[in-house]
């Protein structure tokens, strides 16, 4: 699969982000002064990323977990369509939950 190579600018931002993180927070402004010189945009990019640096993963996981739970809250799906398929009946229920017999709706 063809992938666009990362831009020089992106690579530079990344380099400065990690380099700055190696330093004490107090040392970062001076470091960025020297590294970014007259490129105010570059400095803003790196600084805004540094501001957002955090351990938290919640903001990435929560929407997905909430959505998955909301979708799976449905009690009964027999008779309903999901995409191109019509769910006909429950085949069985095991430790993992219900298994449905389904057929392509356009075959019915």
């Amino acid at each position, binding site marked *: 699969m063809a*992938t*666009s190579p*990362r*831009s020089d600018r*992106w690579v530079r931002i*990344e380099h400065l*982000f*990690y380099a700055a*993180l190696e330093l004490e927070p107090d040392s970062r402004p001076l470091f960025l002064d020297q590294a970014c010189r007259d490129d105010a945009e570059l400095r803003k990019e790196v600084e*805004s*990323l*540094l*501001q*957002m*640096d*955090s351990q*938290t*993963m919640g*903001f*990435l*996981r*929560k*929407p*997905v*977990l*909430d*959505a*998955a*739970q*909301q*979708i*799976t*809250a*449905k*009690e009964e*799906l027999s008779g*309903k*369509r*999901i*995409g191109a*398929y019509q*769910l006909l009946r429950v085949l069985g229920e*095991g430790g*993992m*939950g*219900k*298994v*449905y017999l*389904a057929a392509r709706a356009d075959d019915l």
Partner: protein
Amino acid sequence: METPPDRQLVTRLLKEWGGGNKAALDELMPIVYQQLHKLASICLVGERPNHTLRATDLLHEAYLRLVDADVDWQDRVHFFAVSARLLRRILVDHARAQHRQKRGGGVETISLDESVMIGPQTASEIVALDEALQRLAAHDRRKSEIIELLSFGGLTYDETAAALEISPATVDRELRMAKAWLRRELTRESAEGSAPA
């Protein structure tokens, strides 16, 4: 305590499925169930004590789509990497259906596959995350893939590293910038009050 899947078995099934043996998928299905059920059951313990987590419906949809998918399966982690991508598409499709219905108003007949199952707040968050990930991918594909595997796929850091054939240390490093970038994008977007399309 769940038993981890037998790696040799899973690998064999994946290869068989990749070789055109559809029956191998039926054996794989419980493993997919387990993976996606894990996704739906992480955290929020105690928040909804009476809430029954039924990963079944979501997984069944994923299964139906997987049956028609024509992909080259190499091993278990690649399988779950594809599951992550699939799950992302499923959730985004549902989230966008929620927005369409909301905008449509009126007496428009919608088929049940578009019946709103995700609440508006969560739908907005899913669409925002998906769009931010697409923008991230344009800058840096690998960072976007890492996030996709960890968030949509529910993979562990080690599984993510294996799926992308990089070291866990590289995952950590990539993740740090990817998260900062996404937090900035998502914070910016919600501050502007933009409604995802």
